[in-house]
């Protein structure tokens, strides 16, 4: 049981607005929870009808898929609310697939907002392989939604 793991997870929580983390792997069981009101994702589930629940699910997916081992993967996030498209057109193949190497010059997906298809590229400094695709084709996203994890 290494404290570095806890630190990394906490950073993870801060970076991703997680309010609770539970990890269980051979012989190790771990749970962290944050103070204050529950995250909007939970909030909505509690307080609001379908649309909110939907909006929240996004954040939830992003959150749920995190774990200590991925602590140093870098996220590619959405700069704007909109609809994400993983392929240039319905018949084409995805821009990227897991394992593919990407750099700030590479278009990884499109986000449609106000009828405009915005080409999304990794931020400067993000070079590496696509470790995980965190969104589905056609899924609505908000600012900050994690689209891909690069490592």
């Amino acid at each position, binding site marked *: 049981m290494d404290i570095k793991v806890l630190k990394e997870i906490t950073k993870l929580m801060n970076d991703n607005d997680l309010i609770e983390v539970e990890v269980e792997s051979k012989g190790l069981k771990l749970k962290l929870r944050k103070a204050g*009101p529950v995250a909007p994702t939970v909030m909505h589930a509690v307080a609001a009808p379908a649309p*909110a629940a939907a*909006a929240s699910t996004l954040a939830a997916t992003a959150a749920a898929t995190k774990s200590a081992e991925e602590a140093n993967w870098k996220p590619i996030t959405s700069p*704007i*609310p909109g609809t994400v498209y993983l392929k240039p057109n319905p018949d084409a193949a995805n821009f990227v697939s897991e394992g593919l190497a990407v750099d700030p010059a590479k278009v990884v997906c499109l986000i449609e907002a*106000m009828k405009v298809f915005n080409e999304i590229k990794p931020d400067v400094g993000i070079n590496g392989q696509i470790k995980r695709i965190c969104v589905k084709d056609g899924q609505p996203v908000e*600012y900050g939604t994690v689209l891909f994890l690069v490592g």
Partner: protein
Amino acid sequence: MFKRILIANRGEIAVRIIKSCKRLGIETCVVFSTADRESLAVRLADVAICIGPGPAKGSYLNINNIIAAAELADVDAIHPGFGFLSENSHFAQVVRDCQIEFIGPLSESMEALGNKAKAKALATKAGVPCVPGSVGSVKDQDEAIKIARQIGYPVLIKAVAGGGGRGMREAHNDASLVSGLISAQREAEAAFGNGDCIIEAFVQRARHIEIQIIGDKHGNVISLGERDCSTQRRHQKLVEESPSPVITPDIRKAMSADAVKLSKAAGYYNAGTVEFIYDLDRKSYYFLEMNTRIQVEHPVTEMVNDIDLIALMIKVAAGEALPFKQEDIKPKGHAIEVRVNAEDWQNNFSPCPGKISMYVAPSGKGIRVDSHCYAGYNIPPHYDSMIAKLIVHGTDRADALRILEQALSEYVLDGVKTTIGFHQRLIRDPRFVNNEVTTKWVDDVFMKS
């Protein structure tokens, strides 16, 4: 009526708008910055969409992301609240261009009234009394000096795009006029992207009195009475009340009539506030400026008229006609609002962001608290420091002050410094109780005593 409304704002006013929407059976979508993820508005709204980082520039002032969220949530109207983009005529136009209703006046009206110089010209044309001074902004220092000497010192330098006291300077002679003009222009240029300034006579003993108007899209505009906001610190309102304890029924009537006149001249509809300065010595009033949005202090008007102004804004934006006529407006009792801010009032009112550890707002007959705060809430450093608006409604001013004193004494708030203590001291001051306050009193007298 609208099916879903997007609220392009945060904090107390976002919560306030959500509640009126719920009462009207309208779904709400609130947009928020990453700093507001745990805000009450996000929790209460039906849908919440993150639009950007903490600093307002990337979120609450980010027109692109707000419109994107509006389309994603498929809303049919946007309420801008106050501050941020609420008086941005370009935003209003973009919203309407997207076939989404902007809950506020036409962009044209906002432009005609938002600029102090244009507004003053329009008022003059409509026959509404204005403070003697430059017609339009001054070209240069020489013209400024010429005008200042005409109307006589002291004079006030005001940025045409200014607001909240920014881009405003007093001048008592040519020298201070020149230096004041330069700094006012620089400040306004930085804050509003427009350094133009006007010169006006400076009223020495003034009360700030404003008229709340509301108009529909059928040409009806009525006055909902005045608010007296003379208790200010550095041009920031601290206390607002209605009715004004210093004006006569005749003055009140004339002010209301002029406010309606000006609004109609600007083809104005929805809620707006026409601000006047009342000269205690000359017993006369002058048009100051018009705010083309709902204001922080609107609850004062709601309490004495027993109406929901936010609901009214939504209804007229949806095309409904005003549900009442001017003669139906009969304010009852006396309402006072104090702003509870997270500020160290004994240390220059410096903002004190931080976590509220315990919070219990006062409650009871005649007590209303509009707030977005709760125990555990972290007041972010990015925005204003308002914690709550405490509004009381009594049979008369003395009764209202009694209720206010009780409410303030019941306010339980730990974790951050607040202005509650300031207000407790203020309302016990005989000069405040006896209405001897001018707009400069807090700065020049009260804070020094």
